[in-house]
């Protein structure tokens, strides 16, 4: 087999797509921002040519679609040039969102695993709980998020936890579904083997069901961490837009700061990608320790 080249097999394919997206983005920037320049010129009564419009669409204050370099400049400005304790620092806001994401993800994972263990081991829980778990996800999160915030606020819980709980609400679901499947994945013959050893239920769980469920758990964790971030951002919207990436998005839309919205979006995307990659590394490391065929 040919040796894998990092540049040719990793950088090239991703880079090509990235380049294509940038081209499309720039073209879209020109077309979406041009009407504003034409209107301005028409009001001033001065004729304007396309070659004059083109550079102007790249540097508008409040563009319909900011150009990539504007977003990059904004991200640079709000991450590197601002102290991270400043309310104008994107790193500060990202950290606020990240902390809610991680707390919600942690609670969601523990809750999801506990529910799955209950569902797999208890017929009554299987019958009664599973439909509710599925029903919980049919309610739009945007509708239920403000309710959670308001209700928890009324009982004196504010700050990080309500946002985290919205993350939990979204992230426990893939964990439950994945772990129920994973804990039920051992074959009958492997279970029969445990039966012939007169193994206790806890031995069967820890020596068979739990290790067998690991690939399912990590696949679920990847989905769960990404939607935890979505949950945390949604949770920040009804809190009055004080801090967090959700707040940046909301404030940006209040004041027509599209550049700010886009930079917050990219920060969120980068955060999600980083989190998924970290879970991916953990996945690989655990499976390697479990002797999976490379």
């Amino acid at each position, binding site marked *: 087999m040919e040796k894998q080249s990092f540049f040719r097999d990793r950088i090239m394919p991703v880079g090509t797509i990235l380049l294509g997206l940038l081209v499309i983005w720039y073209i879209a920037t020109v077309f979406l921002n041009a009407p504003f320049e034409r209107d301005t010129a028409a009001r001033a009564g001065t004729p304007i040519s396309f070659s004059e419009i083109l550079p102007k669409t790249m540097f508008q204050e409040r563009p319909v679609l900011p150009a990539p370099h504007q977003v990059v400049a904004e991200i640079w400005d709000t991450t590197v040039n601002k102290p991270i304790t400043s309310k104008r620092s994107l790193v500060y806001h990202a950290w606020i969102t990240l902390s809610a994401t991680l707390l919600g993800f942690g609670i969601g994972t523990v809750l999801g695993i506990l529910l799955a263990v209950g569902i797999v081991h208890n017929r009554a829980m299987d019958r009664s709980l599973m439909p509710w778990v599925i029903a919980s996800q049919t309610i739009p999160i945007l509708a239920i998020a403000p309710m959670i915030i308001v209700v928890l606020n009324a009982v004196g819980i504010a700050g990080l936890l309500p946002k985290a709980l919205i993350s939990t609400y979204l992230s426990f679901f893939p964990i439950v579904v994945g772990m129920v499947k994973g804990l039920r994945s051992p*074959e009958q*013959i*492997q279970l*029969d*083997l*445990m*039966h*012939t*050893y*007169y*193994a206790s239920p806890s*031995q069967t769980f820890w*020596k*068979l069901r739990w*290790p*067998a469920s*690991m690939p399912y758990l990590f696949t679920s964790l990847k989905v769960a961490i990404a939607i935890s971030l979505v949950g945390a951002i949604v949770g920040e919207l009804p809190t009055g837009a004080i801090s967090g990436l959700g707040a940046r998005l909301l404030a940006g839309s209040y004041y027509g700061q599209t550049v700010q919205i886009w930079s917050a979006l990219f920060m969120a995307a980068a955060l999600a990608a980083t989190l998924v990659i970290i879970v991916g590394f953990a996945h690989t490391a655990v499976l390697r320790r*479990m*002797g*999976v*065929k490379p």
Partner: protein
Amino acid sequence: MTITPASVVSARNLGLTFETNDGPVNALTGVNLDVNKGDFVSFIGPSGCGKTTFLRVIADLEKPTSGTITVNGTTPEDARKNRSYGYVFQAAALYPWRTIEKNIALPLEIMGYGAADQKARIERTLDLVNLTGFGKKFPWQLSGGMQQRASIARALAFDADLLLMDEPFGALDEIVRDHLNEQLLKLWDRTNKTICFVTHSIPEAVYLSTKIVVMSPRPGRVTDVIESTLPKERPLDIRETPEFLEIASRVREGLRAGHSYDE
């Protein structure tokens, strides 16, 4: 009903009926059988004759619906709780996330053996199945025959006197199978175990056994029990001797009498 002290498995008028959506299926009816200590008993018959079901009843993986059965003088359930048998399945059923030695350690961990004892037993059983040096490998790194040998080592690790084997070599090619049959006989000789062995191969049954139980389907029942006259020492070419062929033909007759060759 009297049980001789040497009887390891004793079935009297044993029956098992599965309730299915298509009505009851008689997997076993009226089975009377004694397996004595040190016997190598083969169960042979076409699929659906209840040979695997009978083995699973001994192992307490199925409950009989009529008749009585004792294993080591007790109920199958108590025998299982006393860990008095090792079971080898059709597939190796090794846990893929455990190395071979960790797989062999699995029953030892469950039964609470100490670390030093575990290590000694792993070494001894790996040697018994000629897998010394493969302890650190994962199952996927071994061939099918080696995996099945590892699963036999796992069944031997906790020194149960009774070994139940359900078509352990059924999925292997004939050359590997011959080799493993030879090794199994040596192992039986060295360990003095009682072995119940399910197979659908006549040469395999005749080559290995001291007693051959011929079974027939619909309903699953025992049609003949043949005591082998072959000596305990059996090289592979014993299979060409007239004595061997005579027993094989009696097995075939038994199968025919039970309508096993009918369409």
